[in-house]
């Protein structure tokens, strides 16, 4: 790897041991993946901020860094393990919460912006087309690459930290034009309409492509930002994809020939393929818990949920997960009250995938519109998942059951 004089000084320890150690992590990674140089960046989104993810090992790793360095560039924080301002009421354990707050303080001390959300693009961190960034959070990575046309690899906690400390990432993978072409062409026959449909399509594609790049062809009506968020989150749960293209819709895919070779065979996504994914996440009977906002809701989603639930009373638990910034706007608009009056909770900073624990609530079944939540719920919390449209999620919350 060719390093600039400044980068070499970082690696030589001129700026201290912690900068040296973190530059070494990036150089090691760059060598493995064949990077020829480092790229200067100005935007990091850090994963590995939930104490459930870091454990004590990661907490100590971050704490050690925080004792001697500051971030060189702006870095936002991903979802944490508690609702920071409301953890006691939600029922998160004090011991975990204290460790979580300690971890947050370490990041804050280094200069992190405590967004605590998986949707930094809804709270003001919107990289521009072609901008090189270092993002973690599997769903946000897909969104940044695919919907915004920014460029990031799948950064884990330690490399996002190193990127924030050094302002660099190794130039490999999705930073390079030649690695951003589609590898699999999916001909979409069964037209997606709802967030659930987009999640199903994303989940199907993730199983198909692994860590490669799917191209969706044949989607007739333009998806919303929220639809694209739902697709990406599911795609990065069943697989390791970091980028998709949608012909005529996403910014790098104006024409089919821009993103895929002419001789690639198409895989069909029809009703059967749709149904096979839905069967994985299906049940009938009592519903204990309903989760909306995985990834965190936009203000539009929370408005729609509020309108659907207004004046009703729910029988299940209901978490509507949002960044604190979106909740603040929802408070102003009266949406939050409509949801809490019905018996739901608006959860900030965290989510059922990354929170401290859900086990003492003893939920056995969960209805959700999120492919990501449906994927992780059985292994993490021993809950059987039911994937439904948002409106059906609300219906099941009100009736306390799903009869099909």
């Amino acid at each position, binding site marked *: 790897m060719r390093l600039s004089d400044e980068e070499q000084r970082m690696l030589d320890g001129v700026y201290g041991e912690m900068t040296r150690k973190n530059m070494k992590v990036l150089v090691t990674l760059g060598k493995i993946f064949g990077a020829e140089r480092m790229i200067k960046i100005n935007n990091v989104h850090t994963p590995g901020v939930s104490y459930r993810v870091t*454990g004590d090992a990661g907490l100590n790793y971050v704490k050690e860094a925080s004792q001697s360095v500051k971030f060189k560039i702006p870095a936002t924080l991903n979802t944490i393990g508690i609702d920071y301002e409301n953890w006691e009421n939600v029922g998160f354990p004090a011991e975990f919460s204290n460790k979580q707050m300690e971890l947050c303080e370490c990041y804050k001390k280094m200069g992190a912006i405590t967004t605590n959300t998986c949707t930094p693009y809804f709270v003001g961190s919107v990289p521009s087309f072609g901008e090189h960034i270092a993002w973690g959070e599997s769903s946000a990575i897909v969104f940044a690459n695919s919907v915004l046309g920014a460029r990031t690899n799948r950064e*884990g906690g330690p490399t996002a930290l190193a990127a924030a400390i050094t302002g660099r990432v190794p130039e490999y*993978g999705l930073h390079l034009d030649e690695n951003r072409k589609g590898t699999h062409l999916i001909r979409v026959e069964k037209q997606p309409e709802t967030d659930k449909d987009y999640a199903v399509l994303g989940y199907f594609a993730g199983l198909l492509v*692994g860590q490669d790049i799917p191209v969706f062809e044949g989607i007739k009506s333009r998806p919303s930002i929220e639809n694209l968020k739902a697709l990406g989150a599911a795609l990065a749960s069943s697989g*390791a994809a970091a980028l998709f293209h949608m012909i005529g819709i996403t910014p790098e895919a104006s024409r089919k020939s821009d993103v895929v070779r002419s001789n690639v065979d198409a895989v069909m996504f029809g009703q059967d393929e749709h149904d096979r994914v839905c069967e994985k996440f299906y049940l009938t009977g009592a519903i204990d818990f309903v989760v909306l906002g995985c990834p965190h809701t936009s203000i539009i989603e929370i408005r729609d949920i509020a309108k659907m639930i207004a004046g009703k009373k729910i029988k299940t638990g209901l978490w509507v997960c949002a960044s604190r910034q979106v909740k603040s706007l929802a408070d102003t608009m009266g949406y939050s009250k409509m949801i809490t009056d019905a018996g739901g909770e608006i959860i900030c900073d965290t989510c059922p995938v990354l929170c401290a624990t859900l086990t003492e609530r003893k939920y056995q079944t969960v209805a959700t519109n999120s492919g990501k939540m449906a994927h992780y719920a059985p292994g993490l919390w021993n809950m059987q998942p039911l994937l439904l449209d948002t409106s059906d999620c609300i219906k099941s919350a009100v009736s306390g059951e799903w009869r099909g």
Partner: protein
Amino acid sequence: MSEKTLKGRCIVEGETEGEAIVTKDPISFMGTVNPKTGVIIERKHEIEGSCLKGKILVFPHSKGSTGGSYMLYDAVKNCVGPVGIINRAAESVVTIGAIVAELPMVDQVDISQIKTGDYVYLNATEGVVRVVSK
């Protein structure tokens, strides 16, 4: 007893040995594995219920959450993680975890040649995997 030698590419240097645990399914250390016990918790995963402690973990590539890097590191620090990793094509999330955990790791290995229960001598520095089958 039969023995064979496979070649791969060094990801993280080091030498280690242990019994192989092999899966054709990708793994996310956030969601597939409990970092406090080392047990596979993802439902319907090919090796659900198996424990990774002290094993050489053989799988195609990582998937899913980027939290997986710290969770692999945590599992190793908790002494319940694998002692080495062999991939078909290393993906960044597990690679980053292995770098900070200093866990010997190789990729570009024909993993279909390794079966669960085989004893594996992994020289990651040289990219050499010696497999002893019972």
